[in-house]
Protein backbone atom coordinates (compact mmCIF):
# COMPACT_ATOMS: atom_id res chain seq x y z
CA UNK A 1 0.00 0.00 0.00
CA UNK A 2 1.40 3.37 -0.98
CA UNK A 3 2.01 5.93 1.70
CA UNK A 4 -0.41 8.85 1.67
CA UNK A 5 1.40 12.03 0.74
CA UNK A 6 0.31 15.43 2.01
CA UNK A 7 1.93 18.70 0.98
CA UNK A 8 1.67 21.63 3.39
CA UNK A 9 2.94 25.15 2.66
CA UNK A 10 2.39 28.51 4.34
CA UNK A 11 -0.01 30.83 2.54
CA UNK A 12 1.87 34.10 2.19
CA UNK A 13 -1.32 36.11 1.70
CA UNK A 14 -3.25 35.16 4.83
CA UNK A 15 -0.83 33.23 7.05
CA UNK A 16 -2.96 30.09 6.93
CA UNK A 17 -1.77 26.72 5.61
CA UNK A 18 -2.29 25.45 2.08
CA UNK A 19 -2.66 21.69 2.28
CA UNK A 20 -2.81 19.37 -0.76
CA UNK A 21 -3.48 15.63 -0.69
CA UNK A 22 -4.76 12.81 -2.87
CA UNK A 23 -7.73 10.70 -1.77
CA UNK A 24 -9.22 7.96 -3.95
CA UNK A 25 -7.26 9.16 -6.95
CA UNK A 26 -8.45 12.76 -6.74
CA UNK A 27 -6.36 15.70 -5.70
CA UNK A 28 -7.75 18.11 -3.11
CA UNK A 29 -6.36 21.45 -2.02
CA UNK A 30 -7.64 23.38 1.00
CA UNK A 31 -6.84 26.49 3.00
CA UNK A 32 -6.45 25.37 6.62
CA UNK A 33 -6.09 27.27 9.90
CA UNK A 34 -2.59 26.62 11.30
CA UNK A 35 -3.62 26.24 14.95
CA UNK A 36 -7.12 24.75 14.90
CA UNK A 37 -6.49 22.76 11.65
CA UNK A 38 -10.00 23.61 10.49
CA UNK A 39 -10.54 23.79 6.75
CA UNK A 40 -11.44 27.34 5.70
CA UNK A 41 -12.13 26.86 2.01
CA UNK A 42 -11.30 24.64 -0.92
CA UNK A 43 -8.82 25.98 -3.43
CA UNK A 44 -8.71 25.30 -7.13
CA UNK A 45 -5.41 27.02 -7.81
CA UNK A 46 -2.55 28.64 -5.92
CA UNK A 47 0.11 31.08 -7.00
CA UNK A 48 3.83 30.39 -6.80
CA UNK A 49 5.89 33.57 -6.72
CA UNK A 50 9.62 33.95 -7.02
CA UNK A 51 11.65 37.11 -6.34
CA UNK A 52 15.05 38.23 -7.52
CA UNK A 53 16.92 41.35 -6.46
CA UNK A 54 19.56 43.33 -8.27
CA UNK A 55 21.58 45.64 -6.05
CA UNK A 56 24.34 47.12 -8.17
CA UNK A 57 25.91 49.65 -5.86
CA UNK A 58 28.80 51.19 -7.74
CA UNK A 59 29.58 54.88 -7.41
CA UNK A 60 28.96 56.04 -10.97
CA UNK A 61 25.76 54.18 -11.90
CA UNK A 62 24.05 52.61 -8.90
CA UNK A 63 20.91 50.67 -9.75
CA UNK A 64 18.36 48.73 -7.74
CA UNK A 65 15.82 46.36 -9.32
CA UNK A 66 13.22 43.91 -8.06
CA UNK A 67 11.99 41.10 -10.30
CA UNK A 68 9.09 38.79 -9.62
CA UNK A 69 7.55 35.97 -11.62
CA UNK A 70 4.25 34.26 -10.80
CA UNK A 71 2.92 30.90 -11.85
CA UNK A 72 -0.50 29.51 -11.21
CA UNK A 73 -0.36 25.93 -9.96
CA UNK A 74 -3.09 23.34 -9.84
CA UNK A 75 -3.37 20.75 -7.08
CA UNK A 76 -1.45 18.07 -9.01
CA UNK A 77 1.35 20.54 -9.75
CA UNK A 78 1.60 21.47 -6.06
CA UNK A 79 2.06 17.80 -5.16
CA UNK A 80 5.36 17.88 -7.08
CA UNK A 81 6.31 21.36 -5.95
CA UNK A 82 10.09 20.79 -6.07
CA UNK A 83 9.84 20.50 -9.85
CA UNK A 84 7.73 23.66 -10.11
CA UNK A 85 10.20 25.54 -7.91
CA UNK A 86 13.12 24.46 -10.11
CA UNK A 87 11.25 25.37 -13.28
CA UNK A 88 10.22 28.84 -12.08
CA UNK A 89 13.86 29.63 -11.22
CA UNK A 90 14.77 28.91 -14.83
CA UNK A 91 11.76 30.87 -16.08
CA UNK A 92 12.60 34.06 -14.18
CA UNK A 93 16.21 33.86 -15.37
CA UNK A 94 15.02 33.50 -18.94
CA UNK A 95 12.59 36.42 -18.57
CA UNK A 96 15.27 38.72 -17.13
CA UNK A 97 17.72 37.70 -19.83
CA UNK A 98 15.25 38.33 -22.64
CA UNK A 99 14.16 41.74 -21.30
CA UNK A 100 17.30 43.16 -19.70
CA UNK A 101 20.18 41.08 -21.03
CA UNK A 102 22.54 38.46 -19.71
CA UNK A 103 24.55 40.93 -17.61
CA UNK A 104 21.66 41.88 -15.34
CA UNK A 105 20.58 38.25 -15.08
CA UNK A 106 23.97 37.26 -13.73
CA UNK A 107 24.16 40.18 -11.32
CA UNK A 108 20.73 39.56 -9.76
CA UNK A 109 20.32 37.27 -6.76
CA UNK A 110 17.45 35.07 -5.62
CA UNK A 111 15.51 36.56 -2.70
CA UNK A 112 13.13 33.65 -2.19
CA UNK A 113 9.78 32.21 -3.14
CA UNK A 114 6.32 32.00 -1.64
CA UNK A 115 2.91 30.43 -2.20
CA UNK A 116 -0.27 32.48 -2.17
CA UNK A 117 -3.94 31.55 -2.13
CA UNK A 118 -5.01 34.89 -3.60
CA UNK A 119 -4.25 35.11 -7.29
CA UNK A 120 -2.84 38.58 -7.88
CA UNK A 121 -2.54 38.71 -11.62
CA UNK A 122 -4.72 37.58 -14.47
CA UNK A 123 -5.08 33.83 -14.80
CA UNK A 124 -2.15 33.52 -17.09
CA UNK A 125 0.38 30.72 -17.06
CA UNK A 126 3.33 33.04 -16.47
CA UNK A 127 3.50 36.68 -15.51
CA UNK A 128 6.59 38.74 -14.93
CA UNK A 129 7.03 42.14 -13.28
CA UNK A 130 9.99 44.35 -12.59
CA UNK A 131 10.44 47.49 -10.55
CA UNK A 132 13.72 49.27 -10.94
CA UNK A 133 15.21 52.66 -10.41
CA UNK A 134 18.52 54.42 -10.29
CA UNK A 135 19.47 55.03 -6.73
CA UNK A 136 19.98 58.58 -5.67
CA UNK A 137 21.56 59.46 -2.41
CA UNK A 138 19.26 61.93 -0.69
CA UNK A 139 20.87 65.14 0.37
CA UNK A 140 20.63 65.72 4.09
CA UNK A 141 18.21 68.47 4.97
CA UNK A 142 19.40 71.65 6.56
CA UNK A 143 18.44 71.65 10.17
CA UNK A 144 16.44 74.54 11.47
CA UNK A 145 16.38 74.94 15.16
CA UNK A 146 13.16 76.55 16.21
CA UNK A 147 13.79 77.73 19.72
Amino acid at each position, binding site marked *: MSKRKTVT*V*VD*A*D*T*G*NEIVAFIRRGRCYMYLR*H*PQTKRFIKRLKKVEL*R*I*FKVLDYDVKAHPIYA*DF*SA*RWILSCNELMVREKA*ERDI*EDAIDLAIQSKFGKGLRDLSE*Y*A*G*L*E*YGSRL*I*GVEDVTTF*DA*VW*KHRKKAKPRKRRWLI
Partner: protein
Amino acid sequence: MSRATYFKVDVDVKMSNSLLNKWIMTRIKILEWLGFQLIDFNYVETEKGYHFWFGVNGNFSPKTIAETQFLLGDDQTRCRFNFLTLDAKPFHEFNCLVNKKL
Protein backbone atom coordinates in the same frame (compact mmCIF):
# COMPACT_ATOMS: atom_id res chain seq x y z
CA MET B 1 -19.19 40.76 1.07
CA SER B 2 -15.86 42.55 0.82
CA ARG B 3 -12.61 40.63 1.09
CA ALA B 4 -10.38 41.14 4.09
CA THR B 5 -7.18 43.07 3.67
CA TYR B 6 -4.10 41.57 5.29
CA PHE B 7 -1.30 43.65 6.75
CA LYS B 8 1.91 41.64 6.62
CA VAL B 9 4.48 42.36 9.30
CA ASP B 10 7.99 40.93 9.42
CA VAL B 11 9.84 41.05 12.73
CA ASP B 12 13.42 39.79 12.89
CA VAL B 13 13.62 39.48 16.66
CA LYS B 14 13.00 36.35 18.72
CA MET B 15 10.70 36.98 21.67
CA SER B 16 9.68 35.14 24.81
CA ASN B 17 6.04 34.08 25.10
CA SER B 18 5.11 36.91 27.46
CA LEU B 19 6.81 39.54 25.30
CA LEU B 20 5.23 38.09 22.15
CA ASN B 21 1.83 38.30 23.83
CA LYS B 22 2.42 41.93 24.79
CA TRP B 23 3.67 42.72 21.28
CA ILE B 24 0.55 41.25 19.67
CA MET B 25 -1.80 43.01 22.09
CA THR B 26 -0.13 46.38 21.44
CA ARG B 27 -0.49 45.82 17.64
CA ILE B 28 -4.19 45.12 18.13
CA LYS B 29 -4.53 48.36 20.13
CA ILE B 30 -2.71 50.28 17.35
CA LEU B 31 -5.12 48.84 14.77
CA GLU B 32 -8.11 49.74 16.95
CA TRP B 33 -6.79 53.27 17.43
CA LEU B 34 -6.37 53.63 13.66
CA GLY B 35 -9.99 52.58 13.22
CA PHE B 36 -9.53 49.12 11.70
CA GLN B 37 -11.71 46.17 12.59
CA LEU B 38 -9.52 43.10 13.13
CA ILE B 39 -11.13 39.92 11.84
CA ASP B 40 -8.23 37.51 11.41
CA PHE B 41 -4.78 37.05 12.83
CA ASN B 42 -2.01 34.53 12.11
CA TYR B 43 1.67 34.23 12.79
CA VAL B 44 4.49 31.91 11.83
CA GLU B 45 7.86 31.55 13.53
CA THR B 46 10.77 31.93 11.12
CA GLU B 47 14.54 31.49 11.38
CA LYS B 48 15.18 35.05 12.55
CA GLY B 49 11.85 35.98 14.14
CA TYR B 50 8.21 36.00 13.11
CA HIS B 51 5.87 36.73 10.23
CA PHE B 52 2.50 38.21 11.24
CA TRP B 53 -0.70 38.62 9.25
CA PHE B 54 -3.39 41.02 10.55
CA GLY B 55 -6.63 40.66 8.59
CA VAL B 56 -8.95 43.67 8.75
CA ASN B 57 -12.36 44.30 7.31
CA GLY B 58 -12.52 46.23 4.03
CA ASN B 59 -10.39 47.05 1.03
CA PHE B 60 -7.64 49.60 1.33
CA SER B 61 -5.28 51.39 -1.03
CA PRO B 62 -1.62 50.32 -1.35
CA LYS B 63 -0.60 53.59 0.37
CA THR B 64 -2.73 52.80 3.45
CA ILE B 65 -1.39 49.23 3.53
CA ALA B 66 2.24 50.35 3.32
CA GLU B 67 1.79 53.04 5.97
CA THR B 68 -0.11 50.78 8.37
CA GLN B 69 2.51 48.04 8.04
CA PHE B 70 5.13 50.63 8.94
CA LEU B 71 3.12 51.76 11.97
CA LEU B 72 2.71 48.15 13.09
CA GLY B 73 6.48 47.77 13.35
CA ASP B 74 7.34 46.04 10.09
CA ASP B 75 10.98 45.51 9.15
CA GLN B 76 12.26 48.96 8.19
CA THR B 77 14.18 47.86 5.09
CA ARG B 78 11.02 46.15 3.84
CA CYS B 79 9.04 49.35 4.55
CA ARG B 80 11.55 51.42 2.60
CA PHE B 81 11.20 49.19 -0.45
CA ASN B 82 7.41 49.12 -0.04
CA PHE B 83 7.32 52.93 -0.12
CA LEU B 84 9.50 52.89 -3.24
CA THR B 85 7.26 50.37 -5.01
CA LEU B 86 4.22 52.53 -4.17
CA ASP B 87 5.22 54.81 -7.05
CA ALA B 88 5.42 51.88 -9.42
CA LYS B 89 2.32 49.99 -10.49
CA PRO B 90 2.63 46.48 -9.05
CA PHE B 91 2.66 47.14 -5.29
CA HIS B 92 0.89 43.95 -4.24
CA GLU B 93 3.30 41.78 -6.19
CA PHE B 94 6.25 43.03 -4.19
CA ASN B 95 4.63 43.29 -0.74
CA CYS B 96 5.99 39.83 0.02
CA LEU B 97 6.96 37.78 3.04
CA VAL B 98 9.34 35.27 1.55
CA ASN B 99 8.64 31.83 3.01
CA LYS B 100 11.56 30.00 1.51
CA LYS B 101 14.95 31.57 1.02
CA LEU B 102 16.86 30.33 -2.00
